[in-house]
Protein backbone atom coordinates (compact mmCIF):
# COMPACT_ATOMS: atom_id res chain seq x y z
CA UNK A 1 0.00 0.00 0.00
CA UNK A 2 1.35 3.43 -0.93
CA UNK A 3 1.22 6.28 1.52
CA UNK A 4 -0.29 9.56 0.44
CA UNK A 5 3.07 11.20 0.85
CA UNK A 6 4.69 8.70 -1.52
CA UNK A 7 2.03 9.11 -4.18
CA UNK A 8 2.31 12.89 -3.84
CA UNK A 9 6.06 12.76 -4.38
CA UNK A 10 5.62 10.59 -7.42
CA UNK A 11 3.07 12.98 -8.90
CA UNK A 12 5.41 15.90 -8.35
CA UNK A 13 8.25 14.02 -10.02
CA UNK A 14 6.04 13.14 -12.96
CA UNK A 15 4.95 16.76 -13.35
CA UNK A 16 8.56 17.91 -13.14
CA UNK A 17 9.52 15.45 -15.83
CA UNK A 18 6.72 16.75 -18.04
CA UNK A 19 7.74 20.39 -17.43
CA UNK A 20 11.52 20.39 -17.09
CA UNK A 21 12.86 23.46 -15.36
CA UNK A 22 14.42 25.80 -17.89
CA UNK A 23 18.01 26.79 -17.48
CA UNK A 24 18.23 30.24 -15.91
CA UNK A 25 20.08 31.57 -18.92
CA UNK A 26 17.84 30.01 -21.59
CA UNK A 27 16.41 33.37 -22.61
CA UNK A 28 19.19 35.60 -21.35
CA UNK A 29 20.37 37.86 -24.19
CA UNK A 30 23.95 38.65 -24.97
CA UNK A 31 23.74 42.21 -23.70
CA UNK A 32 25.74 44.72 -25.67
CA UNK A 33 28.77 45.94 -23.81
CA UNK A 34 28.82 43.27 -21.13
CA UNK A 35 31.16 40.45 -20.42
CA UNK A 36 30.09 36.92 -21.19
CA UNK A 37 29.19 36.08 -17.62
CA UNK A 38 26.49 38.74 -17.20
CA UNK A 39 23.98 36.08 -16.21
CA UNK A 40 26.42 34.75 -13.65
CA UNK A 41 26.80 38.26 -12.25
CA UNK A 42 23.05 38.48 -11.84
CA UNK A 43 23.02 35.06 -10.24
CA UNK A 44 25.08 36.54 -7.39
CA UNK A 45 22.77 39.50 -6.88
CA UNK A 46 20.58 39.84 -3.79
CA UNK A 47 17.86 42.48 -3.87
CA UNK A 48 15.66 43.74 -1.04
CA UNK A 49 12.25 45.07 -2.02
CA UNK A 50 10.43 47.39 0.34
CA UNK A 51 6.76 47.35 -0.60
CA UNK A 52 5.52 44.41 -2.67
CA UNK A 53 2.46 46.04 -4.15
CA UNK A 54 1.62 47.02 -7.71
CA UNK A 55 5.20 48.14 -8.44
CA UNK A 56 7.39 46.25 -5.97
CA UNK A 57 5.57 42.97 -6.59
CA UNK A 58 6.26 43.22 -10.30
CA UNK A 59 9.91 44.08 -9.68
CA UNK A 60 10.16 40.89 -7.60
CA UNK A 61 8.70 38.83 -10.45
CA UNK A 62 11.05 40.40 -13.00
CA UNK A 63 14.10 39.79 -10.85
CA UNK A 64 13.08 36.20 -10.14
CA UNK A 65 12.83 35.64 -13.90
CA UNK A 66 16.20 37.34 -14.47
CA UNK A 67 17.77 34.73 -12.21
CA UNK A 68 19.01 36.77 -9.27
CA UNK A 69 20.33 34.87 -6.29
CA UNK A 70 18.03 36.16 -3.59
CA UNK A 71 15.18 38.46 -2.69
CA UNK A 72 14.25 40.02 0.64
CA UNK A 73 10.56 40.92 0.46
CA UNK A 74 9.21 43.41 2.99
CA UNK A 75 5.55 44.35 3.22
CA UNK A 76 3.15 44.36 6.17
CA UNK A 77 0.01 44.79 4.06
CA UNK A 78 -2.50 42.37 2.60
CA UNK A 79 -4.20 42.30 -0.78
CA UNK A 80 -7.63 43.90 -0.81
CA UNK A 81 -10.34 43.55 -3.48
CA UNK A 82 -9.27 46.90 -4.94
CA UNK A 83 -5.76 45.48 -5.42
CA UNK A 84 -7.12 43.44 -8.35
CA UNK A 85 -7.14 46.65 -10.41
CA UNK A 86 -3.43 47.38 -10.19
CA UNK A 87 -1.55 44.47 -8.59
CA UNK A 88 -0.33 41.16 -9.96
CA UNK A 89 -2.86 39.29 -7.84
CA UNK A 90 -6.00 37.22 -8.21
CA UNK A 91 -9.18 36.75 -6.23
CA UNK A 92 -7.67 33.75 -4.43
CA UNK A 93 -4.92 35.89 -2.94
CA UNK A 94 -7.17 38.60 -1.48
CA UNK A 95 -6.63 38.77 2.26
CA UNK A 96 -3.15 37.29 2.03
CA UNK A 97 0.04 39.19 2.75
CA UNK A 98 1.61 40.70 -0.35
CA UNK A 99 5.19 39.72 0.49
CA UNK A 100 4.14 36.16 1.31
CA UNK A 101 2.25 35.75 -1.96
CA UNK A 102 5.08 37.22 -4.01
CA UNK A 103 7.57 34.93 -2.29
CA UNK A 104 5.48 31.91 -3.25
CA UNK A 105 5.15 33.04 -6.87
CA UNK A 106 8.85 33.89 -7.15
CA UNK A 107 9.80 30.50 -5.74
CA UNK A 108 7.54 28.78 -8.24
CA UNK A 109 9.27 30.71 -11.05
CA UNK A 110 12.74 30.00 -9.73
CA UNK A 111 12.83 27.23 -7.10
CA UNK A 112 16.45 27.83 -6.11
CA UNK A 113 15.84 31.52 -5.43
CA UNK A 114 16.68 32.47 -1.82
CA UNK A 115 13.67 34.37 -0.53
CA UNK A 116 13.34 35.97 2.86
CA UNK A 117 10.05 37.57 3.87
CA UNK A 118 9.37 40.21 6.49
CA UNK A 119 5.70 40.80 7.21
CA UNK A 120 6.24 44.05 9.08
CA UNK A 121 6.99 47.69 8.38
CA UNK A 122 10.53 48.44 7.28
CA UNK A 123 10.83 50.68 10.34
CA UNK A 124 10.62 47.59 12.54
CA UNK A 125 13.50 45.74 10.85
CA UNK A 126 16.96 45.54 12.31
CA UNK A 127 19.69 47.27 10.36
CA UNK A 128 21.34 43.90 9.89
CA UNK A 129 18.26 42.53 8.09
CA UNK A 130 19.28 44.46 4.96
CA UNK A 131 22.98 43.87 5.24
CA UNK A 132 23.07 40.96 2.76
CA UNK A 133 21.24 42.87 0.02
CA UNK A 134 23.29 44.31 -2.83
CA UNK A 135 20.54 46.68 -3.94
CA UNK A 136 17.37 47.89 -2.24
CA UNK A 137 14.26 48.65 -4.29
CA UNK A 138 11.68 50.85 -2.63
CA UNK A 139 8.13 50.97 -4.00
CA UNK A 140 5.88 52.25 -1.26
CA UNK A 141 3.51 55.19 -0.96
CA UNK A 142 4.29 55.49 2.73
CA UNK A 143 6.47 58.56 3.26
CA UNK A 144 7.78 57.67 6.75
CA UNK A 145 8.84 54.30 5.31
CA UNK A 146 10.60 56.10 2.44
CA UNK A 147 12.59 58.30 4.83
CA UNK A 148 13.46 55.33 6.99
CA UNK A 149 14.53 53.15 4.07
CA UNK A 150 16.63 56.00 2.70
CA UNK A 151 18.33 56.39 6.07
CA UNK A 152 19.08 52.68 6.35
CA UNK A 153 20.54 52.60 2.84
CA UNK A 154 22.83 55.55 3.63
CA UNK A 155 24.02 53.84 6.80
CA UNK A 156 24.65 50.54 5.02
CA UNK A 157 25.96 52.08 1.79
CA UNK A 158 23.36 50.20 -0.26
CA UNK A 159 22.23 51.52 -3.64
CA UNK A 160 18.56 52.44 -3.40
CA UNK A 161 16.17 52.35 -6.35
CA UNK A 162 13.02 54.32 -5.64
CA UNK A 163 10.16 53.56 -8.01
CA UNK A 164 7.21 55.94 -8.03
CA UNK A 165 4.40 57.09 -10.29
CA UNK A 166 1.89 59.85 -10.74
CA UNK A 167 -1.30 58.44 -12.15
CA UNK A 168 -2.94 61.74 -13.10
CA UNK A 169 -0.12 62.68 -15.47
CA UNK A 170 0.76 59.14 -16.59
CA UNK A 171 4.24 59.60 -15.22
CA UNK A 172 6.47 56.81 -14.00
CA UNK A 173 9.74 57.76 -12.34
CA UNK A 174 12.67 55.93 -10.85
CA UNK A 175 15.32 57.53 -8.67
CA UNK A 176 18.61 55.80 -8.12
CA UNK A 177 20.51 56.76 -4.96
CA UNK A 178 24.01 55.36 -5.17
CA UNK A 179 24.96 55.84 -1.48
CA UNK A 180 28.59 55.14 -2.25
CA UNK A 181 29.99 57.25 0.59
CA UNK A 182 27.00 58.53 2.56
CA UNK A 183 27.45 62.02 1.16
CA UNK A 184 25.06 61.71 -1.78
CA UNK A 185 21.32 62.42 -1.93
CA UNK A 186 18.62 60.36 -0.25
CA UNK A 187 14.81 60.35 -0.69
CA UNK A 188 14.35 62.82 2.19
CA UNK A 189 16.76 65.24 0.48
CA UNK A 190 14.18 65.62 -2.29
CA UNK A 191 11.15 66.19 -0.06
CA UNK A 192 9.38 69.52 -0.39
CA UNK A 193 7.09 71.15 2.20
CA UNK A 194 4.06 69.18 1.00
CA UNK A 195 5.89 65.86 1.33
CA UNK A 196 6.97 66.73 4.86
CA UNK A 197 3.38 67.64 5.75
CA UNK A 198 2.16 64.30 4.37
CA UNK A 199 5.05 62.57 6.12
CA UNK A 200 4.08 64.09 9.47
CA UNK A 201 0.42 63.22 8.94
CA UNK A 202 1.33 59.58 8.44
CA UNK A 203 3.66 59.20 11.38
CA UNK A 204 2.88 56.65 14.03
CA UNK A 205 0.78 57.65 16.99
CA UNK A 206 0.64 56.01 20.36
CA UNK A 207 -2.18 55.65 22.84
CA UNK A 208 -1.42 56.09 26.52
CA UNK A 209 -0.95 52.34 26.95
CA UNK A 210 1.87 52.52 24.41
CA UNK A 211 0.02 50.80 21.56
CA UNK A 212 1.26 52.11 18.20
CA UNK A 213 -1.21 53.16 15.55
CA UNK A 214 0.24 53.38 12.07
CA UNK A 215 -2.06 55.42 9.81
CA UNK A 216 -0.47 53.87 6.72
CA UNK A 217 -1.17 50.33 7.89
CA UNK A 218 -4.64 51.08 9.16
CA UNK A 219 -5.55 52.87 5.95
CA UNK A 220 -6.61 55.97 7.86
CA UNK A 221 -3.84 58.31 6.88
CA UNK A 222 -2.49 57.58 3.47
CA UNK A 223 -4.47 58.10 0.30
CA UNK A 224 -3.82 55.02 -1.88
CA UNK A 225 -2.01 55.79 -5.11
CA UNK A 226 -4.52 56.21 -7.93
CA UNK A 227 -3.05 54.78 -11.04
CA UNK A 228 -3.51 52.37 -13.87
CA UNK A 229 -2.09 48.90 -13.95
CA UNK A 230 0.11 49.51 -16.97
CA UNK A 231 1.68 52.58 -15.37
CA UNK A 232 2.59 50.54 -12.29
CA UNK A 233 4.10 47.96 -14.60
CA UNK A 234 6.00 50.73 -16.43
CA UNK A 235 7.46 51.99 -13.16
CA UNK A 236 8.42 48.42 -12.18
CA UNK A 237 10.02 47.86 -15.60
CA UNK A 238 12.07 51.05 -15.34
CA UNK A 239 13.14 50.18 -11.79
CA UNK A 240 14.22 46.67 -12.82
CA UNK A 241 16.11 48.14 -15.75
CA UNK A 242 18.01 50.42 -13.40
CA UNK A 243 18.84 47.51 -11.09
CA UNK A 244 20.15 45.45 -14.00
CA UNK A 245 22.07 48.38 -15.48
CA UNK A 246 23.73 49.05 -12.15
CA UNK A 247 24.49 45.40 -11.41
CA UNK A 248 26.01 44.75 -14.85
CA UNK A 249 27.49 48.20 -15.41
CA UNK A 250 25.46 48.75 -18.58
CA UNK A 251 25.78 52.16 -20.21
CA UNK A 252 26.52 55.28 -18.20
CA UNK A 253 26.25 55.10 -14.43
CA UNK A 254 22.69 55.44 -13.20
CA UNK A 255 23.90 56.54 -9.77
CA UNK A 256 22.18 59.59 -8.29
CA UNK A 257 19.91 60.13 -11.26
CA UNK A 258 16.17 60.16 -11.83
CA UNK A 259 14.61 58.76 -14.98
CA UNK A 260 11.07 59.85 -15.69
CA UNK A 261 8.75 58.66 -18.43
CA UNK A 262 5.62 60.57 -19.37
CA UNK A 263 2.78 58.78 -21.13
CA UNK A 264 1.27 61.94 -22.63
CA UNK A 265 4.41 63.05 -24.41
CA UNK A 266 6.35 59.78 -24.66
CA UNK A 267 9.31 61.72 -23.37
CA UNK A 268 11.88 60.25 -21.08
CA UNK A 269 13.93 62.63 -19.01
CA UNK A 270 17.03 61.81 -17.01
CA UNK A 271 18.15 64.34 -14.41
CA UNK A 272 20.89 64.24 -11.76
CA UNK A 273 19.91 64.17 -8.10
CA UNK A 274 21.62 66.39 -5.54
CA UNK A 275 22.09 66.33 -1.81
CA UNK A 276 20.07 68.75 0.29
CA UNK A 277 22.24 70.20 3.05
CA UNK A 278 19.13 70.62 5.24
CA UNK A 279 18.21 66.95 5.01
CA UNK A 280 17.35 65.67 8.49
CA UNK A 281 18.75 62.21 7.76
CA UNK A 282 22.16 61.25 9.04
CA UNK A 283 24.50 61.03 6.05
CA UNK A 284 27.06 58.74 7.64
CA UNK A 285 28.03 55.27 6.49
CA UNK A 286 28.50 52.33 8.85
CA UNK A 287 31.41 49.98 8.37
CA UNK A 288 30.00 46.47 8.44
CA UNK A 289 32.13 44.10 10.51
CA UNK A 290 31.39 40.39 10.31
CA UNK A 291 32.12 38.32 13.34
CA UNK A 292 32.96 34.66 12.86
CA UNK A 293 31.76 34.04 16.42
CA UNK A 294 28.37 34.69 17.92
CA UNK A 295 28.37 38.33 18.94
CA UNK A 296 27.13 37.48 22.41
CA UNK A 297 30.18 35.21 22.91
CA UNK A 298 32.54 38.15 22.41
CA UNK A 299 33.77 40.26 25.28
CA UNK A 300 33.34 43.98 25.08
CA UNK A 301 37.06 44.37 24.48
CA UNK A 302 36.96 41.88 21.58
CA UNK A 303 33.91 43.58 20.08
CA UNK A 304 35.51 46.99 20.13
CA UNK A 305 38.87 45.72 18.87
CA UNK A 306 37.20 43.77 16.07
CA UNK A 307 35.71 47.03 14.86
CA UNK A 308 39.10 48.68 15.02
CA UNK A 309 37.94 51.19 17.61
CA UNK A 310 39.58 52.07 20.88
CA UNK A 311 37.72 50.97 23.97
CA UNK A 312 39.40 53.72 25.97
CA UNK A 313 37.83 56.32 23.72
CA UNK A 314 35.39 58.39 25.76
CA UNK A 315 33.04 59.07 22.89
CA UNK A 316 32.43 55.46 21.83
CA UNK A 317 28.79 54.45 22.13
CA UNK A 318 27.39 50.92 22.00
CA UNK A 319 23.83 49.99 21.11
CA UNK A 320 22.26 46.55 21.09
CA UNK A 321 18.73 46.36 19.67
CA UNK A 322 15.95 45.79 22.19
CA UNK A 323 18.42 45.84 25.07
CA UNK A 324 19.05 48.47 27.70
CA UNK A 325 22.07 48.74 29.95
CA UNK A 326 21.46 49.17 33.65
CA UNK A 327 24.55 50.42 35.40
CA UNK A 328 23.13 51.00 38.86
CA UNK A 329 19.88 51.52 40.69
CA UNK A 330 19.14 53.95 43.46
CA UNK A 331 16.89 52.84 46.29
CA UNK A 332 14.47 55.25 47.95
CA UNK A 333 16.70 55.04 51.03
CA UNK A 334 19.45 56.60 48.91
CA UNK A 335 21.67 53.52 48.70
CA UNK A 336 23.10 52.68 45.30
CA UNK A 337 23.01 49.10 44.04
CA UNK A 338 25.45 48.26 41.25
CA UNK A 339 23.85 46.18 38.48
CA UNK A 340 26.01 46.40 35.28
CA UNK A 341 23.74 44.21 33.22
CA UNK A 342 21.81 44.28 29.95
CA UNK A 343 18.07 43.86 30.26
CA UNK A 344 15.53 43.37 27.45
CA UNK A 345 13.16 46.30 27.05
CA UNK A 346 9.93 45.58 28.87
CA UNK A 347 11.50 43.23 31.43
CA UNK A 348 11.63 44.34 35.05
CA UNK A 349 15.03 44.49 36.65
CA UNK A 350 14.87 44.04 40.41
CA UNK A 351 17.52 43.84 43.11
CA UNK A 352 17.48 43.78 46.88
CA UNK A 353 18.82 46.91 48.49
CA UNK A 354 21.77 45.94 50.67
CA UNK A 355 21.01 48.75 53.12
CA UNK A 356 17.25 48.66 53.73
CA UNK A 357 16.59 45.18 52.24
CA UNK A 358 13.72 46.51 50.13
CA UNK A 359 13.25 45.37 46.55
CA UNK A 360 14.49 48.03 44.15
CA UNK A 361 13.08 48.14 40.65
CA UNK A 362 15.13 49.75 37.88
CA UNK A 363 13.37 52.78 36.51
CA UNK A 364 13.73 54.33 33.07
CA UNK A 365 16.30 56.78 34.39
CA UNK A 366 18.50 53.90 35.59
CA UNK A 367 18.64 52.38 32.10
CA UNK A 368 20.18 53.45 28.84
CA UNK A 369 19.56 52.10 25.34
CA UNK A 370 22.86 53.55 24.13
CA UNK A 371 25.77 53.22 26.48
CA UNK A 372 29.26 54.69 26.45
CA UNK A 373 31.83 51.90 26.35
CA UNK A 374 33.62 53.73 29.15
CA UNK A 375 30.89 52.29 31.39
CA UNK A 376 32.20 48.78 30.70
CA UNK A 377 35.61 49.35 32.28
CA UNK A 378 35.08 46.79 35.03
CA UNK A 379 33.45 44.18 32.79
CA UNK A 380 35.59 44.63 29.69
CA UNK A 381 36.67 40.98 29.56
CA UNK A 382 33.34 39.39 30.41
CA UNK A 383 31.44 37.81 27.47
CA UNK A 384 28.45 39.93 26.52
CA UNK A 385 26.25 36.85 27.00
CA UNK A 386 27.12 36.86 30.70
CA UNK A 387 26.20 40.52 30.88
CA UNK A 388 22.63 39.63 29.96
CA UNK A 389 22.57 40.05 26.16
CA UNK A 390 22.17 36.40 25.16
CA UNK A 391 20.45 36.59 21.79
CA UNK A 392 21.66 39.41 19.61
CA UNK A 393 21.93 39.63 15.86
CA UNK A 394 23.73 42.95 15.65
CA UNK A 395 25.53 45.60 17.65
CA UNK A 396 26.36 49.12 16.62
CA UNK A 397 29.28 51.23 17.72
CA UNK A 398 29.56 54.97 17.16
CA UNK A 399 32.26 57.44 17.90
CA UNK A 400 32.46 61.06 16.85
CA UNK A 401 33.13 60.41 13.18
CA UNK A 402 32.85 56.69 12.56
CA UNK A 403 30.17 54.04 12.85
CA UNK A 404 30.32 50.26 12.86
CA UNK A 405 27.68 47.60 12.48
CA UNK A 406 28.78 44.24 13.85
CA UNK A 407 26.87 41.25 12.50
CA UNK A 408 27.52 37.51 12.56
CA UNK A 409 29.35 36.27 9.46
CA UNK A 410 26.73 33.63 8.76
CA UNK A 411 23.15 34.54 9.32
CA UNK A 412 20.56 31.80 9.38
CA UNK A 413 18.22 32.02 6.42
CA UNK A 414 14.88 32.96 7.86
CA UNK A 415 11.58 33.14 6.15
Amino acid at each position, binding site marked *: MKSFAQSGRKRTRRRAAANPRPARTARFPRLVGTCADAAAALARLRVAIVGCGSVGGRVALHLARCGVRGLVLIDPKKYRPVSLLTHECYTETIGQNKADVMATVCRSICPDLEVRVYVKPV*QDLLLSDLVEADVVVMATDNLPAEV*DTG*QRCIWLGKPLVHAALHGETLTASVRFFLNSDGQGPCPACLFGPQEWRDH*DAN*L*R*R*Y*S*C*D*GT*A*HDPCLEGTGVVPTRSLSFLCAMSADLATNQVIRHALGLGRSVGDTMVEYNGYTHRTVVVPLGRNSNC*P*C*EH*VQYRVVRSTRQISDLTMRELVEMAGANHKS*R*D*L*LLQIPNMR*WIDQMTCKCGAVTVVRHFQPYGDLCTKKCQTCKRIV*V*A*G*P*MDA*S*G*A*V*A*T*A*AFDSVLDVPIRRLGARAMSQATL*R*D*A*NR*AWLIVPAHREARQ
Partner: protein
Amino acid sequence: MKSTTSTSSNRPGLNDLSKVELSGAVLMKMRFAQLLNAGSTAWQARKVAELRDVLAIEQIGGPIKVLAADLSGDLKITVEMRMPVPRRPTEESGLRLGDHAVLGLLYTFEATRQPQPGTSFVYILDPGDVWHPNVSSGNLPVQVLCLGPSVPAGFPLKHILLLTYASLTMMAAQFDDLDPAGVLNREAAQWWQRNAHLLPLSREPFLKTTQARKVAT
Protein backbone atom coordinates in the same frame (compact mmCIF):
# COMPACT_ATOMS: atom_id res chain seq x y z
CA MET B 1 1.53 87.57 7.37
CA LYS B 2 4.81 88.21 9.09
CA SER B 3 5.37 87.34 12.70
CA THR B 4 7.88 88.85 15.02
CA THR B 5 8.89 88.04 18.57
CA SER B 6 9.03 90.87 21.04
CA THR B 7 9.49 90.91 24.76
CA SER B 8 8.55 93.71 27.09
CA SER B 9 11.80 93.35 28.99
CA ASN B 10 15.28 92.53 27.78
CA ARG B 11 15.19 89.15 29.52
CA PRO B 12 15.15 86.33 27.03
CA GLY B 13 12.29 84.01 26.27
CA LEU B 14 12.30 80.39 25.14
CA ASN B 15 13.35 81.34 21.63
CA ASP B 16 16.36 83.30 22.84
CA LEU B 17 17.96 80.68 25.04
CA SER B 18 20.94 80.31 22.73
CA LYS B 19 21.88 83.93 23.52
CA VAL B 20 21.97 83.29 27.26
CA GLU B 21 25.50 83.10 28.64
CA LEU B 22 25.87 80.40 31.23
CA SER B 23 27.79 81.40 34.32
CA GLY B 24 28.58 80.36 37.85
CA ALA B 25 27.15 77.09 39.10
CA VAL B 26 25.12 76.56 35.96
CA LEU B 27 28.24 76.74 33.82
CA MET B 28 29.96 74.26 36.15
CA LYS B 29 27.08 71.81 35.66
CA MET B 30 27.47 72.14 31.90
CA ARG B 31 31.22 71.52 32.01
CA PHE B 32 30.86 68.58 34.37
CA ALA B 33 28.26 66.90 32.17
CA GLN B 34 30.43 67.35 29.08
CA LEU B 35 33.26 65.32 30.59
CA LEU B 36 31.69 62.12 29.27
CA ASN B 37 29.74 62.70 26.08
CA ALA B 38 29.64 59.76 23.67
CA GLY B 39 28.19 59.13 20.23
CA SER B 40 28.44 60.70 16.80
CA THR B 41 29.46 64.33 16.48
CA ALA B 42 25.90 65.30 15.63
CA TRP B 43 24.43 63.40 18.57
CA GLN B 44 27.03 64.78 20.97
CA ALA B 45 26.31 68.31 19.75
CA ARG B 46 22.57 67.74 20.04
CA LYS B 47 22.88 66.54 23.63
CA VAL B 48 25.00 69.55 24.53
CA ALA B 49 22.56 71.94 22.83
CA GLU B 50 19.54 70.44 24.60
CA LEU B 51 21.27 70.49 27.99
CA ARG B 52 22.43 74.04 27.38
CA ASP B 53 18.84 75.13 26.72
CA VAL B 54 17.67 73.53 29.94
CA LEU B 55 20.50 75.14 31.90
CA ALA B 56 19.77 78.48 30.25
CA ILE B 57 16.21 78.28 31.55
CA GLU B 58 17.64 77.79 35.02
CA GLN B 59 20.09 80.65 34.46
CA ILE B 60 17.40 83.17 33.55
CA GLY B 61 15.30 82.28 36.58
CA GLY B 62 12.92 79.76 35.09
CA PRO B 63 11.07 77.44 37.44
CA ILE B 64 13.62 74.64 37.18
CA LYS B 65 16.86 73.58 38.79
CA VAL B 66 19.05 70.95 37.14
CA LEU B 67 20.03 68.35 39.71
CA ALA B 68 21.98 65.98 37.47
CA ALA B 69 22.82 65.54 33.81
CA ASP B 70 24.27 62.57 31.96
CA LEU B 71 25.43 62.81 28.35
CA SER B 72 27.26 59.50 28.26
CA GLY B 73 24.63 57.53 26.34
CA ASP B 74 21.07 58.74 26.08
CA LEU B 75 20.60 62.28 27.33
CA LYS B 76 19.34 62.06 30.91
CA ILE B 77 18.59 65.12 32.99
CA THR B 78 17.10 65.27 36.45
CA VAL B 79 15.40 68.58 37.21
CA GLU B 80 13.43 70.00 40.05
CA MET B 81 10.48 71.99 38.71
CA ARG B 82 8.78 74.48 40.98
CA MET B 83 5.03 74.59 40.45
CA PRO B 84 1.85 73.41 42.15
CA VAL B 85 1.74 69.64 41.75
CA PRO B 86 -1.56 67.81 42.35
CA ARG B 87 -1.18 64.89 44.76
CA ARG B 88 -3.62 62.11 45.49
CA PRO B 89 -6.51 63.50 47.57
CA THR B 90 -7.15 62.10 51.00
CA GLU B 91 -10.50 61.81 52.74
CA GLU B 92 -9.44 64.33 55.38
CA SER B 93 -7.80 67.05 53.36
CA GLY B 94 -9.03 66.52 49.82
CA LEU B 95 -6.61 67.43 47.04
CA ARG B 96 -3.09 68.15 48.22
CA LEU B 97 -0.73 70.40 46.32
CA GLY B 98 3.00 69.93 46.32
CA ASP B 99 5.24 72.89 45.53
CA HIS B 100 7.67 71.09 43.27
CA ALA B 101 8.30 67.87 41.38
CA VAL B 102 11.55 66.10 40.62
CA LEU B 103 11.47 65.02 36.99
CA GLY B 104 13.63 62.65 35.03
CA LEU B 105 13.98 63.73 31.39
CA LEU B 106 15.09 61.07 28.94
CA TYR B 107 16.03 61.96 25.38
CA THR B 108 17.26 59.17 23.13
CA PHE B 109 18.97 59.35 19.74
CA GLU B 110 15.88 57.67 18.29
CA ALA B 111 13.84 60.67 19.39
CA THR B 112 15.84 62.83 17.00
CA ARG B 113 14.81 60.79 13.97
CA GLN B 114 11.54 58.99 14.78
CA PRO B 115 8.35 60.19 16.45
CA GLN B 116 8.11 58.78 19.92
CA PRO B 117 5.25 57.89 22.26
CA GLY B 118 4.32 60.79 24.53
CA THR B 119 5.19 58.61 27.52
CA SER B 120 8.86 58.23 26.68
CA PHE B 121 10.30 61.56 27.82
CA VAL B 122 9.21 62.63 31.31
CA TYR B 123 9.29 60.53 34.47
CA ILE B 124 8.18 61.88 37.84
CA LEU B 125 10.70 60.79 40.43
CA ASP B 126 9.12 62.73 43.29
CA PRO B 127 6.44 62.98 44.63
CA GLY B 128 5.25 59.44 44.02
CA ASP B 129 1.53 60.16 44.23
CA VAL B 130 0.84 62.71 41.50
CA TRP B 131 -2.90 62.85 40.86
CA HIS B 132 -3.25 63.61 37.20
CA PRO B 133 -5.16 62.05 34.31
CA ASN B 134 -2.01 61.93 32.16
CA VAL B 135 0.29 60.54 34.83
CA SER B 136 0.46 56.79 35.39
CA SER B 137 -0.67 55.36 38.68
CA GLY B 138 0.25 51.69 38.41
CA ASN B 139 3.02 49.67 39.99
CA LEU B 140 5.77 51.12 37.82
CA PRO B 141 8.94 52.19 39.61
CA VAL B 142 8.26 55.82 38.74
CA GLN B 143 5.24 57.72 37.47
CA VAL B 144 5.19 58.50 33.77
CA LEU B 145 3.79 61.68 32.25
CA CYS B 146 2.12 61.36 28.86
CA LEU B 147 2.63 64.35 26.56
CA GLY B 148 0.24 63.16 23.86
CA PRO B 149 -0.26 60.44 21.27
CA SER B 150 2.98 61.23 19.48
CA VAL B 151 5.92 63.55 19.95
CA PRO B 152 7.44 64.55 16.60
CA ALA B 153 10.99 63.60 15.74
CA GLY B 154 13.55 66.08 17.00
CA PHE B 155 11.14 67.84 19.37
CA PRO B 156 13.29 70.17 21.53
CA LEU B 157 13.66 69.44 25.21
CA LYS B 158 12.80 73.04 26.16
CA HIS B 159 9.38 72.51 24.59
CA ILE B 160 9.02 69.23 26.44
CA LEU B 161 9.67 71.15 29.67
CA LEU B 162 7.09 73.74 28.68
CA LEU B 163 4.53 71.01 27.96
CA THR B 164 5.35 69.32 31.25
CA TYR B 165 4.81 72.55 33.15
CA ALA B 166 1.52 73.20 31.38
CA SER B 167 0.41 69.64 31.98
CA LEU B 168 1.31 69.32 35.66
CA THR B 169 -0.21 72.70 36.52
CA MET B 170 -3.32 71.47 34.69
CA MET B 171 -3.26 74.33 32.18
CA ALA B 172 -3.28 71.76 29.40
CA ALA B 173 -4.32 68.21 30.21
CA GLN B 174 -6.42 65.52 28.54
CA PHE B 175 -9.31 64.57 30.83
CA ASP B 176 -11.53 62.61 28.48
CA ASP B 177 -11.14 58.93 29.29
CA LEU B 178 -13.24 58.11 26.21
CA ASP B 179 -10.77 59.87 23.89
CA PRO B 180 -8.98 57.35 21.62
CA ALA B 181 -5.66 58.69 22.91
CA GLY B 182 -6.74 57.53 26.37
CA VAL B 183 -5.67 58.68 29.80
CA LEU B 184 -3.12 57.12 32.10
CA ASN B 185 -5.14 57.46 35.29
CA ARG B 186 -8.84 57.01 34.64
CA GLU B 187 -9.78 57.51 38.26
CA ALA B 188 -7.98 60.85 38.34
CA ALA B 189 -9.52 61.87 35.01
CA GLN B 190 -13.01 61.33 36.38
CA TRP B 191 -12.10 63.06 39.65
CA TRP B 192 -10.84 66.13 37.79
CA GLN B 193 -13.94 66.21 35.61
CA ARG B 194 -16.02 66.41 38.80
CA ASN B 195 -13.71 69.08 40.22
CA ALA B 196 -13.15 71.20 37.14
CA HIS B 197 -13.58 74.36 39.22
CA LEU B 198 -10.09 73.77 40.68
CA LEU B 199 -8.51 74.18 37.25
CA PRO B 200 -5.92 75.35 36.45
CA LEU B 201 -3.67 74.99 39.46
CA SER B 202 -1.62 77.98 38.39
CA ARG B 203 -1.83 80.77 35.85
CA GLU B 204 1.85 81.65 36.11
CA PRO B 205 3.57 81.43 32.72
CA PHE B 206 6.53 79.09 32.41
CA LEU B 207 8.90 82.00 31.94
CA LYS B 208 7.51 85.10 33.59
CA THR B 209 9.54 87.45 31.49
CA THR B 210 8.31 86.09 28.22
CA GLN B 211 5.47 88.12 26.80
CA ALA B 212 3.02 86.70 24.32
CA ARG B 213 4.16 86.95 20.76
CA LYS B 214 2.87 89.96 18.99
CA VAL B 215 1.87 89.18 15.50
CA ALA B 216 2.48 91.99 13.11
CA THR B 217 0.89 92.04 9.75
